[in-house]
């Protein structure tokens, strides 16, 4: 409760202020809907929005899971040798710089309308921070500890599993935190073109001048992003709390 109250206060204040500004005619309601109208849209279109939310959540989660697995695997390969890193890292950066909105139509050509395109979009947008952070983590292993493992004859695999990977965990989780938000964005953008889920709701409501419904869908999308972010924070707290300063809850 103590943690919930501080962010709740500005939320209530802004909501009330917005409601008042729209009702008094200060803000035209075809541009900004009153919070009460957004709530009504949420209730009226609950079946449609719930179904869209499920689709978007599934696509964002699958895309995020894929970029976590492939991102970490790519980082492990890149970290294994400087030559491999020099040759392939620039192509990993490609994912960071590619304007997803521009290649989304291409994804439709490749994967067709629907889920696959949306997942691909979420994946492309969210993989780079996983690769970059994991790689930084894997490359910054304490040299003394690497010497220690070498002294006791540990193989490269054992060193990876028992030393480099756990040591990189805080950075990996940072990457996942960034990627979780991006996966939701990627899914919504994919849905603009791929045609399903919350992205599609936004797109359709926009053409109907239903700003209240646009806001309702955007609200749900950010709830999804927050939930994913919260999930990573929970995992982070559970795995790091005993040893890393960022999660220290020592007595």
């Amino acid at each position, binding site marked *: 409760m103590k943690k919930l109250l501080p962010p709740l206060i500005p939320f209530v204040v802004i909501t009330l202020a917005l409601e008042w500004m729209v009702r008094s005619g200060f803000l035209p309601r075809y541009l900004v809907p009153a919070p009460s109208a957004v709530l009504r849209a949420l209730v009226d279109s609950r079946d449609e929005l719930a179904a869209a939310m499920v689709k978007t959540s599934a696509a964002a989660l699958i895309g995020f899971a894929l970029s976590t697995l492939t991102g970490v695997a790519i980082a492990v390969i890149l970290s294994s040798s400087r030559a491999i890193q020099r040759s392939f890292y620039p192509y990993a950066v490609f994912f960071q710089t590619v304007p997803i909105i521009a290649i989304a139509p291409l994804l439709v050509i490749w994967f067709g309308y629907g889920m696959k395109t949306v997942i691909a979009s979420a994946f492309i947008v969210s993989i780079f921070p996983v690769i970059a952070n994991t790689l930084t983590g894997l490359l910054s292993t*304490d040299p*003394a*500890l690497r*010497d*220690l*493992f*070498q*002294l*006791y*004859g*540990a193989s490269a695999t*054992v060193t990876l599993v*028992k*030393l480099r990977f*756990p*040591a990189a*965990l805080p950075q990996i989780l940072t990457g996942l935190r960034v990627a979780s938000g991006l996966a939701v964005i990627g899914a919504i953008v994919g849905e603009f073109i791929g045609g399903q889920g919350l992205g599609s709701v936004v797109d359709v409501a926009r053409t109907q001048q239903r700003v209240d419904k646009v806001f309702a869908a955007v609200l749900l999308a950010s709830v999804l992003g927050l939930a994913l972010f919260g999930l990573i924070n929970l995992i982070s707290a559970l795995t790091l709390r*005993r*040893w*890393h*300063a960022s999660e*220290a809850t*020592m007595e």
Partner: protein
Amino acid sequence: MDLSIEAGEFLAVLGPSGCGKSTLLRMIARLSVTNGGRIVTEPEQFQTAFVFQDAHLLPWRTVLDNAALPLELMGAGREERYTKARAMLAQVGLAEAETRYPAQLSGGMRMRVSLARALVTEPRLLLMDEPFAALDEITRFHLEVQLRDLWQRRGMTVIFVTHSISEAAFLANRAVVMTRRRGGIKLDRRIDLPAQRTNDLRSDARLGHEMRLLMGAMEEE
């Protein structure tokens, strides 16, 4: 440099910063390759342990799992590693702390875990690179007495790099002062002090005499 070290010796290596003390240790541990020279050991293969300037523990592992790490890497079974690690932790006075994590320990306790980790394999040779440099003086005094005690009981060879003259004189049976120019030896001295070293010795005139000799060699550099 030409240096021959007897088995069971406690050798302190002194010298100005950058003279190659740490490099020497790393080469003996076969963590660095020698540049032109040769290091011959008898027997050729034996268990070596290394203690670094800081404790360098794995922060995600408990004290017990840290102390057992070398045995784990060498493929020892669970039973054996924990029995040996527990025994070693008891010897450094950390039996009570085995379920704690490094972040919950003081600097001195962490260094003792590091020492237990080094000794858990019962090494024939223990290489130490300024292990107590980051500790406060009282903790350091305490650990020095403890190390000396462990050495007497176990009879391994210790090569101890330090730039503390008092530490070298207090701990070692033989002290070597290296020259600033890489690889030379300025002084090679057998430390003439009783085998049993306690904190009382710290104010003893004989220790003062040994320290003056070592300091003279250091200053000429």
